[in-house]
């Protein structure tokens, strides 16, 4: 794990309850809180992704109107979705997910600042 020194030149200290990089601290409690929120976010998006992705072959197998009825020119709903809208769906999912994940990172930042400030107040900085 020593390779982290390649991109972090600060003294990395800590134990199993917190990690410090310079003035920046992560505690296991704050990381756990954000991890749970992150896990909820990722798995919610994952569920939507797999539901939509697997609904395409399911519709191709069982929904006649989906794969056989032309809705514009020669486009069936199946063709139009797989040939264009599926990619649009991926772009929107990836963008909104990234935005929300960034907000979670900011939440961790605020929590860490509060923890550091509290530690300074209590005079127990290591």
């Amino acid at each position: 794990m020593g390779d982290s020194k390649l991109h972090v030149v600060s003294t990395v200290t800590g134990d199993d309850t917190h990690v410090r990089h310079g003035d920046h601290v992560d505690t296991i409690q704050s990381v756990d809180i954000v991890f749970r929120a992150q896990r909820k976010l990722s798995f919610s998006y994952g569920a939507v992704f797999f539901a939509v992705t697997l609904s395409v072959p399911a519709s191709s197998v069982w929904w006649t109107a989906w794969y056989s009825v032309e809705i514009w020119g020669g486009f069936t709903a199946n063709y139009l979705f797989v040939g264009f809208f599926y990619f649009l769906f991926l772009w929107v999912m990836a963008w909104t997910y990234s935005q929300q994940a960034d907000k979670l990172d900011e939440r961790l930042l605020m929590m860490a600042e509060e923890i550091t400030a509290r530690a300074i107040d209590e005079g127990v900085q290591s």
Partner: protein
Amino acid sequence: MNTLAIVLVVGLTLFTIGLSIFSRRFTRTTADFYLAGRKVGSFANASAISGDYLSAASFLGVAGAIYASGLDGIWYAAGFAGGFMLVVLFIASPLRRFGEYTVADFAFGRFGSSRIRLITVIAVLLTSLFYMAPQMYGAGTTWQVLVGEGILGMNAYTSGVVVVAAIIAFYVSVGGMKGTTMNQIFQFWWLAFAMILVVIFAFGNGFDYPETLKAESQQPIVNTKAYSAGELVIPDDDGVTPYERAAEVMTGEEMVAVDQFIASGADGTIRVAYYATNKLHPERQALFSEPGHRYNGFDQFSMVLALVLGTAGLPHILNRYYTNPSGKAARRSTFWVLIFIGVFYIGSTIVGLAGLGIIREFLADGGTINADTVHGLLSKPDQLMPALGEILGGQWLMGIVSAGAFAAMFSTVGGLLIAAASALGHDVYEKYINKDASEAKRVAFGKTAVLAFAGVALLIGLSIPYFGLDQAYPALIAMMVTWAFSVGASAFVPMLLTGIWWKGTTEKGATAGMVVGLVGALTIIFLNILQQLGVIGHDGVLGFVGSLTYPVLFTFPLGLLTIVIVSKLDGQLPKNVDRIWMRIHGTASERYEKQYGLDKVGSMFSKAK
């Protein structure tokens, strides 16, 4: 010989080599050689990842698959793109935050055992070799089409494999990850440029998307196949001979040639056209705008899952996330990758459809192209891109497209060589063989590993026709890519997902899951090869297992289940699991780097200290 096309390919090659020599001055440390100094920004890294990912299979194969199979070919493209959704949601950011060099580093850091690191190294090497095989085969076949003759006494196929292996070995060993990254960025944009040009020329030629789709879906998809004179008159299970099926499709004039071939009693084969059948809805015709030409109901599901899970298990793609300066940048990179490859694949869908009418009309008007055709269709759909380039834009466009095909091979094999070299150089040499090696020695070993793996890639490329694999599989490039995806998805993805998202994963659980996934995937793949070569039959358990086209549907859940069960039974978490958790999901390191400007990108060209 296509002189102008060859000049453009040579130009691309010289530029690639020049870029590597230029980047050499910026490569001093192992972090430079393997990770481009971790200074690659989101947009640049997305371009490099796209170049890394879009291989010959994507550039030539996807458009060809759509040309031959319609909607089922597009489903293939959608699966390729969908894989990056899994990467952005579950893997990209945590992997980058862990801040190492390789996937094997992650396994070691997360579970703290040399055993799992070495198993990961073996899996990385096997996945890389499986993925190199179709690229080298593509190099040989593209040379056959483009140049048509060999050099230095070698045949055309061997010449292509040798030349491409030599060029890639040189540019990767000289330029390392920085040179490879710069090349992959350039090569991706060349690919995108070539694809967009063909699309623009197709629309300029009068292509109307909805109307062409309607016209091409009026009658069943037509495929072609080569038969010997004897095979043409043997009835199938429905009591219909290939000759009779061909007569339903081909013109009287075309059938005269078939009759003459049969009457001559000549050896060899003749290619005929026939209407395809619908594998999904046998009662319906196999139409271009409907599913069922390529995949039955089971494969409609298993194919897309194999591609989605496989993308998240490709080590040369995962390694690229370590070159980003932060977890946030890794997420943003993946978003841009989805945009880039999405646009690329939408272009492929247009080219695949447009090619049908354009080539048929061109040939009907008396035009000739440098590819075999039957009934107005290309015998080898993988030749669609260069053939369409030749028809729509002459030698110039064909040259740009051919250079694109070589760019696709260069960028992907370059990434694979770096991944394989880092597995051997960083994960084995630096950690176990010579821990005190100087930076110069480490980089020198990495370069030696690149050359060694290029040699292995060369041997694999040459052995494919030797063992008759090119005859056993009708779409060999796509098949071999599927194998690489299956090995990666079965070996890595269960370990990565549980290692990142379930604290209760133990070293024994992860190791057992990796072994089960890896061995399971390899077993099914080799049984499938043996079945195609006629060594084993289709009956019994072996026959059933050997007939599985996409092993990942079985091996991924098996690996995942093994990890969960063994971890629960074992219960021995790493002693410092909380600290590991903070390293994967915490951001203190990134905040520190941001405070002091260490997260800045754009300094990839600064000289390393």
